[in-house]
């Protein structure tokens, strides 16, 4: 091959790939609105993206699999731990990760910023990205099921799902896998059964849980009764 032909090979090869790449880029712009539910990309979602960037979330977490691998992927965080879970974690990481071997810094997130973040993560959790990440498929499913089946639950079970399952697991369901090494929060089936079942329901306290101001005395009672029956 002469040097002239080698140069032509270089030009043709590069241009061919470039044309294909730019054509697919155009195609991506045509389809991306539908794939990402762009109609739901509200100002609050954008505000949440600003918070996400301002607080440097992506330097520990991945989202859509990109970023840093120090902390869990956030693409489906909303499906995984819900609005309350996200807010609890970002507002009081030092409480949530008290027993964890990996900590999260308290980033001085305000209530408003936390709400914006939730909106952003709710939006990302619905991006059609061929069901990635694989480990969170069960949460997207269970989020759907929760919506469908929530009505049939007992008051205690419903309250437990809403308030506790973003940190605790039960019967293999919920945020933590139930293994001690998870060190996120103990599985609620693990406390000594006799002692728990002998306790009056109202003594089931949220002592080491993040303070829940929205938890009414009625909810607490219902959760206590529900948990007492589990052992």
């Amino acid at each position: 091959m002469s040097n002239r032909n080698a140069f032509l090979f270089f030009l043709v090869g590069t241009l061919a790939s470039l044309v294909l790449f730019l054509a697919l880029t155009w195609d991506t712009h045509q389809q991306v609105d539908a794939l990402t539910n762009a109609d739901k990309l509200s100002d609050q979602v954008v505000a949440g993206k600003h918070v996400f960037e301002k607080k440097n979330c992506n330097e520990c977490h991945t989202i859509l699999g990109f970023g840093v691998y120090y902390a869990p992927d956030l693409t489906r965080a909303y499906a995984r731990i819900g609005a309350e879970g996200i807010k609890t974690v970002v507002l009081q990481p030092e409480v949530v990760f008290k027993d964890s071997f990996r900590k999260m810094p308290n980033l001085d997130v305000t209530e408003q910023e936390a709400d914006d973040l939730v909106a952003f993560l709710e939006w990302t959790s619905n991006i059609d990205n061929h069901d990635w990440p694989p480990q969170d498929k069960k949460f997207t499913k269970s989020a759907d099921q929760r919506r469908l089946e929530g009505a049939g639950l007992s008051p205690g079970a419903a309250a437990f799902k809403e308030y506790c399952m973003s940190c605790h697991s039960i019967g293999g369901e919920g945020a933590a896998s139930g293994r001690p090494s998870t060190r996120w929060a103990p599985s609620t089936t693990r406390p000594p059964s006799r002692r728990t079942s002998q306790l009056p329901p109202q003594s089931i306290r949220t002592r080491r849980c993040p303070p829940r101001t929205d938890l009414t005395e009625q909810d607490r009672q219902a959760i206590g009764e529900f948990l007492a029956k589990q052992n």
Partner: protein
Amino acid sequence: MQQTATVRAGGIGMGVRDEKLVPYASQRVAYWYFVVALALFVLQIVVGLWLAISYAFTIPQSIVDVLPFGMTRAMHTNLLVLWLLLGFMGGTYYLVPEEAEREIYSVPIAYIQLVAFVAIGVAALIGFGFGYTQGRPLLEIPTPLDFLVVAGALLFLFNVGMTVLKGKKTAILGMLLGGLVFLALLYIFGMPFYRNLTIDWFYWWWVVHLWVEGAWELVTAAILAFVLIKVTGVNRKVVEKYLYIETALFLFTGLAGTGHHYYWIGAPRTWLYVGGIFSAMEVLPIVAMVIDTFRTQREKGVVIKDKVVWTFALGTAIGHLVGAGIWGFAHTLPQVNYYTHGSQVTASHGHLAFFGAYALLNFTMFWYALPRLRGVVKFKSSTAILGFWVMSLAVLGLGVAMGVAGVLQTYIERIMGQGFMTAQAQMQFWFKVVLFFGVFILLGVLISFWHLMTARQAAEDAAETP
């Protein structure tokens, strides 16, 4: 080891200019680029050790609140980009006068530009400490500083462009300049704020992927071609022909190969096919480069005089193949990537590829240029070779340890569906291994840095000993 390296100006085959070690006075600007780049590399590794500690052990909340992992990680990666780019720029300023056969257009601009980049870098690093960031990995530099980066890049391109324009034009210079212009243009796509996260990542990769698997490959190919001609004295025409063929393959596979980053971001399904096919071919140009390097070595009449430079040149060819080629191929197909995406497998690939392809390339240029700039013709090569092996084997060990952690993560988290922290608990041991090898990387780089700055002229008779 009694080997010594012989350093000759011009090189055989090029033949004629033996009179001066550094033929053009303006090549000296490269010196400070190289020294600063090396210092920043050392700093990058020190920060990296802290990151490994953060993975391997529990850091108390009180420290995490003041010195978050994310802040130090931003420093680690920005130091990487800064030192590699300064190395490329220094390499360019060293190579261009010899190729264009004239002095650099403006020496003051070259120094102003170095000071500007270092100032931007220092401001950015201090800024990260105070939470002044764009919050996007690798592109953290806040927008006002981005404009300064663009201004600095334009100064650099103007200076190099004018030198080439007024001097002799060679294929190497064309490829180098093309790569540098491409590099600068792509940076612009990383600057705006994108409302849609999917579009954000789409253009983020125009910077990151098209830099490392496009523009930087052109710069690398040009610098390697220059060093090949100088060190082996092979015919320029042959080197140029292979330069075209290799870069053609790099760009043909690399441009459409960007698709392997678009599998899971909410982009159309077409990318799974195009990204998968083209990125599977991305290993071809690297294989071609390795074959080409060995072919050059075996060419009739070629005598490798400069053993150190040649060790690093072979090292970068093989490191490129292992880190970028093989490790990249291992998880680039969508069927595999679905499980490995965003895990420590990527981190393993990143470390091996950046070191093999770009850190060693920079060291090849450092070892070619720095002794000359210091007026050293022949020096004992054993320490340099030791530095090469310590850092190369340590990076390999680190990459393998991260790879094992990544496979564990993929299996426990992605396939078994266990929690993130369950997987991390199993991976912790391997981060201790990462830390262990990290210490040896630091050692290897310090040996190389120290020797680059202090290697003395060896006695003539010692230099003759093989």
